[in-house]
């Protein structure tokens, strides 16, 4: 039997990984979509053009469904710190508790107070307050992301802590902890990636309506706003934020960078593999086609820079799943590059006024929306697999962090429970979102009567 199956840390990792990956499918859309709602609400206030309000009403329903699933799948995350990772909480709770608490107190109260009003309260609030509700939800969701990314940044690159008499970690400087440079870079990179998801979903719906010949004014609005935002966000994900993120890994986790690139032997003029598969047993990259010097340049600024290889480090400090890490990282980069090319071309067609007549491009835009979800997930796999074998980098091993009193059977039971519950939840979500998209925005009704048919 595989030793993983009797290892309690494995099951708790699998449960946390599964519930978190699933949960993050929803906030990554709402964090991007929230700014579309703010923008359209603001345009509606400034121009009085009813099409912006129609867009907000339509997307607020999609937003609401995403937000609801995001909330109910997010609450278990915080509690799993205690249920499955009790020894980690004992060790680092005195530090990371600060941001977990601040996320609830500053961000969740803000979001949850205004989200109901944003989705259903247009009449009750009136246009100005409705705009403020959209702004409150958008700010709350980004604030929440900042606090949780600072928490993750502490696990990647611990700062602002002290070691207490009992060996656990305590907070030493909240300022240092909150302003962790890793946190800022990760926040920028992650938020732009979330914006990519939102700005792929919006034009996908626009393309769907255009191809079906429905809702022409709304479809044009979604296509233009979505595509242009997607271009900007896709570029910013790669440069400067992705570039800075990789440099940060090179500086603070050189063994992770080596594993991400499948570099077993160190040296100058290190290349980036365009194609290749890591062979851990024989310690080499199979079938590799490399761009020479690219990794040296990207990670450390010159082609002659020395990039460390995995063999320079003891094997027990290597990330424990190098293949998955390598494929995740490379596929993320590939997808990110395709996003830039696709959206640059689509924006060019918009500028020429030819997007609506380019059937094949509309098909591509309509079908492209799942890929940012995949890229976001791959990015998080890269970050979290790259951190292994540490739970707090350089200080605390993942194998030491799980709850010793919880049996494997209990964890497997709750994991299966989550899989079942989340499968049904996913079906329900797709059914309801599909229904809203099939119904479409209420742009056929006379202006001013729109709210009444809002069911």
């Amino acid at each position, binding site marked *: 039997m595989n030793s993983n199956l009797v290892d309690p840390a494995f099951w708790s990792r699998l449960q946390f990984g599964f519930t978190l990956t699933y949960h993050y499918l929803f906030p990554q859309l709402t964090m991007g979509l929230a700014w579309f709602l703010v923008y359209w609400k603001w345009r509606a206030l400034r121009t009085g053009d009813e099409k912006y309000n129609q867009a907000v009403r339509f997307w607020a329903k999609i937003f609401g469904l995403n937000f609801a699933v995001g909330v109910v799948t997010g609450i278990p995350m915080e509690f799993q710190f205690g249920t499955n990772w009790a020894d980690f909480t004992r060790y680092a709770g005195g530090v990371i508790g600060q941001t977990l608490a601040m996320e*609830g107190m500053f961000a969740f109260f803000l979001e949850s107070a205004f989200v109901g009003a944003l989705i259903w309260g247009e009449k009750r609030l009136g246009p100005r307050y409705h705009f403020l509700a959209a702004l409150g939800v958008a700010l709350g969701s980004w604030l929440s992301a900042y606090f949780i990314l600072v928490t993750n940044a502490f696990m990647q690159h611990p700062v602002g802590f002290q070691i207490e008499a009992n060996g656990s970690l305590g907070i030493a400087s*909240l300022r240092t902890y909150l302003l962790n440079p890793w946190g800022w870079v990760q926040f920028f990179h992650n938020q732009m990636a979330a914006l990519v998801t939102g700005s792929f979903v919006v034009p996908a719906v626009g393309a769907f309506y255009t191809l079906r010949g429905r809702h022409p004014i709304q479809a044009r609005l979604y296509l233009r706003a979505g595509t242009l935002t997607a271009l900007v966000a896709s570029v910013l994900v790669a440069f400067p934020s992705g570039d800075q993120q990789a440099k940060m890994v090179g500086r603070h986790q050189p063994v992770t960078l080596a594993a991400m690139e499948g570099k077993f032997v160190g040296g100058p003029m290190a290349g980036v593999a365009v194609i290749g598969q890591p062979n851990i047993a024989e310690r080499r990259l199979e079938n590799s086609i490399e761009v020479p010097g690219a990794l040296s340049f990207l990670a450390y600024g010159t082609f002659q820079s020395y990039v460390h290889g995995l063999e320079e480090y003891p094997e027990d400090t290597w990330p424990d799943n190098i293949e998955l890490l390598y494929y995740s990282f490379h596929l993320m980069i590939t997808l990110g590059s395709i996003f830039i090319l696709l959206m640059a071309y689509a924006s060019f067609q918009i500028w020429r006024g030819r997007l609506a007549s380019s059937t094949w491009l509309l098909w591509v835009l309509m079908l492209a929306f799942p890929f940012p979800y995949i890229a976001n997930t791959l990015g998080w796999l890269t970050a979290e697999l790259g951190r292994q074998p540490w739970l707090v980098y350089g200080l605390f091993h993942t194998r030491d962090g799980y709850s010793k009193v*919880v049996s494997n059977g209990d964890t497997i039971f709750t994991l299966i429970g989550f899989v079942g519950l989340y499968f049904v939840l996913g079906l329900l979500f797709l059914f309801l979102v599909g229904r809203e998209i099939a119904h479409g925005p209420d742009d056929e009704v006379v202006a001013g009567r729109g709210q009444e048919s809002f*069911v």
Partner: protein
Amino acid sequence: MIATWYGIVSFMLIVYVALDGRNFGAGMLHWLVARTPEERRQVVAAIGPLWSWHEVWLVGFGGTLVAVFPRLMASAFAGYYLALFLILWCLLLRGISLEVGGHINDRLWQGFWDFVFVFSSFLLAILFGAAAGNLVRGVPLDAQGNFSMAFFTNFSVSGHVGLLDWYTVSVALFAVVILAAHGASYLTLKTEGPVHERSAMWAKYLWVAVVPLFLAISVESWVVRPDLPGRAIHDPVCWLGLLVAIVSAILLISGLLTHREARAFLGSNGLLVGLLATGAGALFPVMLYSTLAPENSLTAYAVVANPRALYLASIWWPVAFVLATTYFVFISLRYAGKVSVKRDTQAFY
């Protein structure tokens, strides 16, 4: 400082119970007070746009617990493992039932989600009640501050106890009745028409039923933890809690008798807060009592984070609290007044 933070953490949990307790209560009474699909939408609308804001008090409590008492969070949450996941799954079902129930105007669809709403509300009231019972009775903590618990063992309240025993089951029953009464008072205040009439009737029955159950629970608690009353007498917080509870009970009774709904609901909230505060005061400084050996109990002093963590939290927590309350008041004012069948049930609220 440690006592203050024990107070703040308890306060957050108590506020959560008072706020979400009314939603559990409304959920448990859903089928009894609302008969037609329109009336059932009215109940959901009365819970209003702020149910997730209520739930955030639980999340804020969890986060603050990690920040201030990390070793308590670690011991308690790992020990209550399966019970806690049941709570999380029920919260998930309850939230989904509220959010998607109104999405499709179809009797079968809404009937199904009404069932999920009622079912999860009942289970949540039972589980939170049993959890409260467990906090008073204690858990089988070993010398390392760890425990794991079966759902039930031999239903006795000492030694290797389970989640459910005669004491925690009776607290769970008490929780069901008092939260249902609380929910009925809320629905009386927030609705009009037939739902209002039925809620007012149920509020009276349920609050009458609370009285003997409360006396029984008090005696039982005394039997289970004979040390608690002695400690409570010397604790000013317990006296304050008791005072709040008594004043609130008077408000509640006069509100019920004179049909002053806001007064009754205020009394209902105050009664819950007062009783829970008395309990929290009596338990201090023990946060998790050991049924195996009292010296294994985890006190606030043993599980607290470093003084700097408490100091830092004392700076940002009040700011966050004021902001959170401001949003709440702002939205509540927009949604003030009664929910009517005609006006508010077309959409969600």
